[in-house]
């Protein structure tokens, strides 16, 4: 792998950038591998990387039906945080946070992980109590968290409507200073490049159209580029989980696919430093390095595979953002887009062996899987390599719904649209 550094950049600048190599090869698929990962999103790529790096498994392929990163890794609002309340969740996401903190160096790719903090605004005393519970949960697990009063909130985020008689006045907030954002595409490209450097075949425009079975076992896949065999097939296809598993005969899953819209404003000079969430609704906003305010709200709340949403949610999100940050009203919306989320029935992910022998499942990320990218791949690689979950992903089983051990961070119940 060509090493990236200020020096290599300078050297190449002098030679007209003619010597840069492709970030990853474009190999044709081999007939067989030791393991196949379906899905060239963040999770599939990081799984391949950690399988190679941590478990020495390098004869593997990542199969992506479109261009690399065309799924949710390429369209999320890039928030990285580990401010979860339930122990099963916060341990996992904190492990992810630790991996994030070393990721650029690990991958030799600047993923621009920017730890500018996330601030959850509280608007009622009971919301402050909830945040206290969550913050204390974090602190007991060794995660950074601070409870802020009104003045501190106002100081940190100029432009917030802090008037005491606002419709939903801001009473305080929960801050995780180590949280932040990362450059989403770079995460996909960085993992792809690093996995490729360790020998992983990353195969784009290769859609899985069926599974090869022997006995009850999955032994490979059919693709638009032919059959590929492997004793282990990991599926990490985010919004397409139900569709892909149906190819393996699994007709029903605790998942619904919903569209989540996101927005970016025209770029402006730095005006919002940390990531802020609105507590009297559902809104999260940050400013990208390019200057655009990147924000999103709720899902559209109906099953969808369309990657596009409808106007009511757009209007609602705009209303929320102008209530919280009244200056944003004056800015212009530059672009809107949507992604398909695999909303699980309890809002928490699935990283597990099964549901068939030879098959491994990584799914159910709802709108929170970007931050999980490193740990998800790390845990899924472990699970695939050792045929059992790592303690960090042990709670994320598929049978938890049957057994009742759901991880319902919001307490919203078995209604995907509510998570």
């Amino acid at each position, binding site marked *: 792998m060509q090493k*990236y550094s200020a020096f290599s950049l300078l050297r190449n600048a002098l030679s007209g950038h003619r010597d840069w190599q492709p970030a990853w090869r474009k190999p044709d698929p081999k007939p067989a591998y030791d393991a196949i990962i379906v899905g060239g999103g963040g999770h599939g790529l990081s799984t391949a990387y950690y399988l190679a790096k941590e478990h020495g498994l390098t004869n593997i392929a990542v199969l992506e039906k479109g261009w690399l990163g065309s799924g949710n890794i390429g369209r999320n609002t890039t928030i990285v945080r580990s401010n979860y309340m339930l122990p099963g969740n916060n341990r996992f996401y904190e492990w992810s946070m630790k991996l994030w903190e070393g990721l650029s160096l690990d991958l030799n790719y600047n993923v621009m992980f920017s730890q500018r903090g996330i601030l959850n605004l509280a608007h009622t005393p009971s919301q402050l*109590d909830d945040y206290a519970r969550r913050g204390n949960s974090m602190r007991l697990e060794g995660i950074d968290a601070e409870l802020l009063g009104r003045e501190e909130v106002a100081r940190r985020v100029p432009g917030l409507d802090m008037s005491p008689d606002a419709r939903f006045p801001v009473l305080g907030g929960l801050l995780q200073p180590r949280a932040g954002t990362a450059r989403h595409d770079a995460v996909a490209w960085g993992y792809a490049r690093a996995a490729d450097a360790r020998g992983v075949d990353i195969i784009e425009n290769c859609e899985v159209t069926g599974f090869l079975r022997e006995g009850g076992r999955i032994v490979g896949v059919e693709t638009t580029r032919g059959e590929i065999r492997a004793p282990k097939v990991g599926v990490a296809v985010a919004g397409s989980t139900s569709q892909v598993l149906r190819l393996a005969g699994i007709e029903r899953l605790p998942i619904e696919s919903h569209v989540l819209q996101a927005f970016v404003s025209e770029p402006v000079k730095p005006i919002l430093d940390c990531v802020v969430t609105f507590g009297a609704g559902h809104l999260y906003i940050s400013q990208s390095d390019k200057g655009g305010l990147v924000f999103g709200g709720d899902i559209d709340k109906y099953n969808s595979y369309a990657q596009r949403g409808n106007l009511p949610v757009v209007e609602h999100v705009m209303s929320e953002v102008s209530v919280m940050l009244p200056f944003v009203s004056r800015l212009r919306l530059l672009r809107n887009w949507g992604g398909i989320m695999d909303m699980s029935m309890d809002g928490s992910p699935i990283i597990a062996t099964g549901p068939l022998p030879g098959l491994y499942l990584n799914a159910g990320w709802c709108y929170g899987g970007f931050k999980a990218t490193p740990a998800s791949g790390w845990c899924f690689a472990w699970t695939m390599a050792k045929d059992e979950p790592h303690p960090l992903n042990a709670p994320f089983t598929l049978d938890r719904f049957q057994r009742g051990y759901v991880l319902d961070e919001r307490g919203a119940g078995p209604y995907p649209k509510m998570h």
Partner: protein
Amino acid sequence: MSGYRLPQGGSHLDRSRPLAFRFDGEPMQGFAGDTLASALLASGRVLVGRSFKYHRPRGVMGAGPEEANALVELRDGARQEPNTRATMTELYGGLEAASQNRWPSLSFDMMAVNDLLSPLFSAGFYYKTFMGTGQATWHFCERFIRKAAGLGRATHLADPDRYEKTNAFCDVLVVGAGPAGLMAARAATAAGLRVILADENARAGGRLFEDGVHLDGLAPAEWIDGALREIEAGGGRILPRTSVYGYFDGNVLGAVERVADHKRKPAPFEPRQRHWTIHARHVVLATGAIERPLVFSGNDAPGVMLASAGLAHATRYGVAVGASVVVFANNDGGARTAIQLADLGVSIKAVVDPRREIDPALAAALGARGIRLETGAVVAATRGRKALAGIDIRGFDPISGALGANVMQPGCDALLVSGGWTPSVHLASQAGSAPVFDAALQSFVPGAAREAWTAAGACAGTLDLAGCLAAGLEAGRTAANACGKTAENRDISLPALSGQLAGAELPFPLFDVPATGGAKRFVDFQHDVTADDVDLANREGFRSVEHLKRYTTLGMAADQGKTSNVNAIALMARARGLTAPQVGTTRFRMPWTAVTIGALAGRETGHHFAPVRRTPLHDWHVAKGAEMMTAGLWMRPRAYIGPGETLRDAYIREATAVRQRVGIVDVSTLGKIDVQGPDAGEFLNRLYTGGFAKLPVGKARYGVMLREDGIMFDDGTAWRLAPNRFLVTTTTANAGAVLAHMEHYLEVVWPELRVHVTSVTDRFAGMAVAGPQARKVLQAALGEGDVSTEACPHMGIVRGRIAGAPVMIARLSFSGELAYEVYCDWPAGLAVWETLIEAGKPNGIMPYGMEALGTLRIEKGHITGAEMDGRTTLADVGLGGMASRKKPYVGSTMTQRPAFVDPERPVLVGLVSRDGQAIRAGSHLTLPGGGASLGHVTAVTWSPALGANIALAFLSRGRDRHGEVLEAAFPLKDERVAVTVADPCFYDPDGSRMHV
């Protein structure tokens, strides 16, 4: 000298109305009808902005929404608007604009050093560096990157303007009022249809002004006005200054009308902008096309402009964009533009065309005007940094694409460029149809319609005027047919055209000119993406058009690549040895042009973000000093804070009054549902965990509902008012959800049940009278009715009258004291409340708020939303006994799953602080000295009744731990409090106080 105002002409201009404005503080003048861009050009201004990355000097390049360079900060103070396109800004008197993305000044910008360092700043350079020793290095560097990026400056001041929203309905929405759109709207109107015609410009007409023709003998402006009058007379609605920005499902389109942006500020009560949600049966997309620039060295110099923009500035605003102008085009439009401009008095030096020959009639016309024609030639480079000074014209071999010999190096101050036309397929594409490649146009046109729309005119790839008019007429008729008006649309005919120049618009497929002299060749002007960047992306494997976009940021600027996308596709196609359609386009998304966020929010902002829900006692509470708090949409009193009191003093006083004497609290916000019908009892039996079918008339019962997954959903009481009629109460928070839950079961799951449910939350005001003196007070207030123990035992219901109003009274207690809930007509609420207070005066009655209510319920270990948090079971909160074993109910089976019977489950316990220290809500329980969380604290209070700090908490194996000492840890504040685990019911555990 550069641009100047021509002595005459300008269809949009009112020369009798000069307007003063300022740019970068410098006073200037224009006329009514000008855009900021045309006024700047007329004043000789060339340099107006700086580019995003390299801070390159830039001038105006367009005349409409495509503008990529001339972005300004408009207005100031709270109205400051960064990134505003000067070409779309109508001039008004007193306009203030400033250039942006430069420091300290536009002409001397320190950040232009980026341009010198540009070899380092190739596409994606930041992924390769700034890693150093890890996060610290990046954080240090990131600050500078952020400051350098971002274009204009926004303000932290709140937007002072109003935005309105409306819904409109029509048979046919015509988007774009160019010749095609006008004809379509005329035809649809004539067919008797309801038509809306929207165009983002102040004046309708599109590019018709630049066609140099007469229609039915009329000048364009006259013909356009006639068409508009005809459409309006036919009932059509014309929306100028309105951008249709989004095409949503079901033929719903979003549009933003700039109502007052052409004024200094909106008039009183006038919105700045209005958002239109347009519901159309059929849509005609007549959005036109945008001219493409050509890619050559130095093609971004201020003074290089689209040919159509040069022409538009002359025809519309009477502006010559330069004193000495050269035209460079790969199609006949170049020559035609030159001829038209020359006829308008602009001095044209030469026309440069890569083709070996052009239409002979045009060539002759150029000759007649003394304009030099260089065919088989290209502009290979430009001179001049802050203003165009000249160009290098080189020979060109159209077959090999190679540059030939130097032809000439004329000086000029404006270069008009045309690389062909790019149809504005955005809306069609948003509606779900992938655009298809048209080889003749070397561009994409709308694909097959998925929603109900028809594309017409330049938007559909028809470039000649006669064709556009005919297509518009046809589209209007198609729309009429689609709306079922097949016969009525015959009497509109096409106008006769005169004065038109010959020539075809179809471009010779030249997109770029080989590099010469090391100057950059820009593809995306705003984001500074060059042809070299496209090559680099290809080399590094970012070959998919979507990778190209993301790696180089091409097409991601505020103009969304309106002028750059097709060129980029062509360059990538060549680099990869593919055709343009094989490369394909990036995905089109709303908005078509950037729209103000405030317009999408409308008036649903500030206080109007959400309606305020108020009980009939609201004003009373406020008048009595209550601190109000939000509870969902409701406002509720938190405590009535007296002079000199703190919140804490107040709630202690209130809670003490309830325990010792009597208090009264507004519970009107509780959800109330009338459940009626022959099967009402059976229905409630199925929903509640307890039995309700046999509840006697005149009695109330506490009940809990589960969700289908067996988790607690809501609690409340059901009062049986008649054999087939119940009044069900819910928590304030879940009132809506419980009603919807009931409706679901009645309509979808058990349609056979004859039960009718209606929200009666607003029917009854509710107030709870609680305390040892409650009966006395209530009886004294009752004009009619009996609340003696005999008439109204615990959970009994009686009727009566207070202050003349009928009341319904149930003897229920949340506080643990003798208590009654009194319900009366909503409008009678205040009179009943005041009568109760009056009657209670001798007993020292005290109104109490949410804080005291909370204290009282915590003392009793009663649960609320803090405990029923969507994860807890009946057994967890100690109500396992309420789970009927005699009948199934919603959720009952699911509670048999392993997790529900896991002995480790946290269960509800009480906590008492051991050393008098307050316990904080949100604390976690640990063993003394720390360790892992064993559970968490849901609610805390200083209990006046117990004289102790107490709390409710969930604790793993909590029932076995009563008496154990633990710590309530609050690491957020580095606090830990020693607590003794206790039964959650601290006060009067046998309930004797309610049973008196």
